[in-house]
């Protein structure tokens, strides 16, 4: 039988997990802080309210460990939205099927125009994003897009609907490097409320997506939860549990964690559980203290000021000047976004900020052509 995270996940209960985190005390936090190798119980302590008074200490350790492992560098990537067609209903998403917005899927020509723009800005790592519309934006469309741009980028990541193992194998063969697949929330009942219709409503299929990717031999998998749907502490614990299971099972694959917080969009959903800036800093540092080698990624969802202060604390890759609408860079800048970005500065300004902070910007850290 195939390995599956579900076997581990089923042994846990949401409410017990959450109360376990909330009951961590100062002593647990101090013990976790003073260890050199930390486990998931330490992670719980570090994300607990009891760790709040130790945030500065956590940040100091996180910053120095990140520097040791990743040096004075930060990687840059850019998202490129290929389509906003979608047959899912997701309560928090601007592309949700029932939202009355003009739908658009980029043609080859349009993709190449967007690519030219991103290349001119220096990008060499690209993230392709779509909604889920299997007839028009299915595996064939994604495969075609990867083949079309493969020679132009050092690596290609996708954030699209979960696929079958054979589909991933095909895409990897043609140049796919990494896949981002966020569980959104590990709270199964809440997940069903936010994904009432479409293939995405299948919680289990999504949960097992990283297993299918691992079996397909992908280079990198990005995990995360969408903060705002449920309690961020419990969701982060389950993400970390997922991460550690995957690291042991698919040990040749690299992993990254992202930290999306709900942003305003057309059709709007207010966060059920708020996550403050201080909470987000705590979480980023806790991940770094749990895992010295994990890539931590930050998008332009976050504000200019927040991003400037967070880059030295543990984050290892960021995007800039992102557009979250298909054709948003040059083809059709006025179309509707998936969500509003917050840091709207041009790439050059972000790069200048990073340099000023003593960070060397890494545009290329992979070479597809020898694979």
């Amino acid at each position, binding site marked *: 039988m195939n390995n599956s995270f579900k076997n581990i996940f089923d042994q846990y209960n949401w409410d017990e997990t959450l109360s376990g985190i909330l009951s961590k005390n100062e002593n647990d936090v101090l013990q976790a802080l003073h260890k050199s190798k930390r486990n998931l119980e330490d992670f719980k302590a570090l994300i607990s309210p009891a760790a709040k008074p130790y945030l500065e200490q956590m940040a100091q350790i996180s910053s120095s460990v990140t520097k*040791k492992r990743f040096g004075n560098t930060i990687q840059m990537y850019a998202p490129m939205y290929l389509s906003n067609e979608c047959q899912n209903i997701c309560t928090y998403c601007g592309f949700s099927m029932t939202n009355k917005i003009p739908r658009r899927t980029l043609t080859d020509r349009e993709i190449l125009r967007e690519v030219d723009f991103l290349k001119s800005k220096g990008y060499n790592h690209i993230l392709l994003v779509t909604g889920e519309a299997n007839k028009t934006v299915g595996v064939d469309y994604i495969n075609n897009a990867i083949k079309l741009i493969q020679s132009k980028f050092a690596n290609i990541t996708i954030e699209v609907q979960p696929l079958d193992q054979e589909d991933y194998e095909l895409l990897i063969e043609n140049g796919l490097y990494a896949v981002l697949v966020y569980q959104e929330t590990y709270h199964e009942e809440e997940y069903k409320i936010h994904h009432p219709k479409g293939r995405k409503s299948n919680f289990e299929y999504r949960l097992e997506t990283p297993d299918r990717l691992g079996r397909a031999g992908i280079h990198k998998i990005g995990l995360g939860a969408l903060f705002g749907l449920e309690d961020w502490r419990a969701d982060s614990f389950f993400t970390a549990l997922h991460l550690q299971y995957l690291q042991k099972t698919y*040990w040749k694959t690299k992993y990254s964690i992202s930290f999306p917080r709900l942003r305003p969009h057309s059709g709007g959903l207010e966060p059920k559980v708020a996550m403050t800036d201080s909470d987000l800093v705590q979480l980023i540092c806790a991940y770094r203290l749990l895992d010295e080698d994990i890539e931590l990624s930050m998008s332009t969802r976050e504000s200019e000021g927040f991003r400037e202060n967070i880059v030295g604390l543990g984050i290892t890759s960021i995007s800039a000047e992102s557009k979250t609408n298909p054709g948003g860079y040059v083809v059709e800048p006025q179309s509707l976004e998936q969500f509003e970005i917050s840091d709207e500065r041009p790439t050059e300004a972000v790069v200048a900020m990073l340099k000023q902070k003593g960070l060397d910007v890494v545009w*290329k850290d992979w*070479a597809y052509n*020898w694979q």
Partner: protein
Amino acid sequence: MDKLKIADKEFSSRLFTGTGKFSSSDLMRKALLESESELITVALKRVDVNNENDDILSHLDHPRINLLPNTSGVRDAKEAIFAAQLAREALETNWIKLEIHPDPKYLLPDPIETLMAAEELAKLGFVVMPYIHADPVLCKRLEEVGAQCVMPLGAPIGSNKGLKTLEFLEIIIEQSNVPVVVDAGIGSPSHAAYAMEIGADAVLVNTAIAVSQQPVQMAQAFKMSVEAGRMAYNAKLAPIKQHAEASSPLTSFLNE
């Protein structure tokens, strides 16, 4: 200092360095020039070998510097061989630092794939410098298939923990017919000096210089420590005494 010979090249400096983790390419160049290192490794995945204005490569243009491309990022022998061939063509060097680490977390080398790739690359005329565990038998096997040196690790790469594999490094140095370069884990000049004192032919240092508060000064400190360690090795260290030998209570009766 006595010169080090690897393949057909002689080196005055026994400090090899790397290009990763610096806060800018200018600082990297300054530190590496200060180190007087003559062999500098550069990750193929980080550079655009077809672009003559590549930021890293253009900052390494100096008559003293020999580039040592490395295959960091490859997961097996096949990918390593392909990467080495691309490097040879684009950078016009047949030197290759063979790094095969399928584990992206600790970047620990795969001994089986490394041995297979080393054999094939040696046949293809490469000067093969393999990054490997401090495994004495593996070092002999690599020597047999034509590796021009061996590069055992002192501790996990980037860890700055020093010579955690000391017992095995000593055996490797004792047995090796090719130069032994201690490659990973060296975190301070004293670690480097110690590696040279026990007879390593060279050390490779990157993180400890690049991530220091003052990389240029740290590069100089490493240069001096490697020279001191080598000089001490050549001068033959006085034996270490476990206890005082002031008198001879057991044998003094012989002189009575």
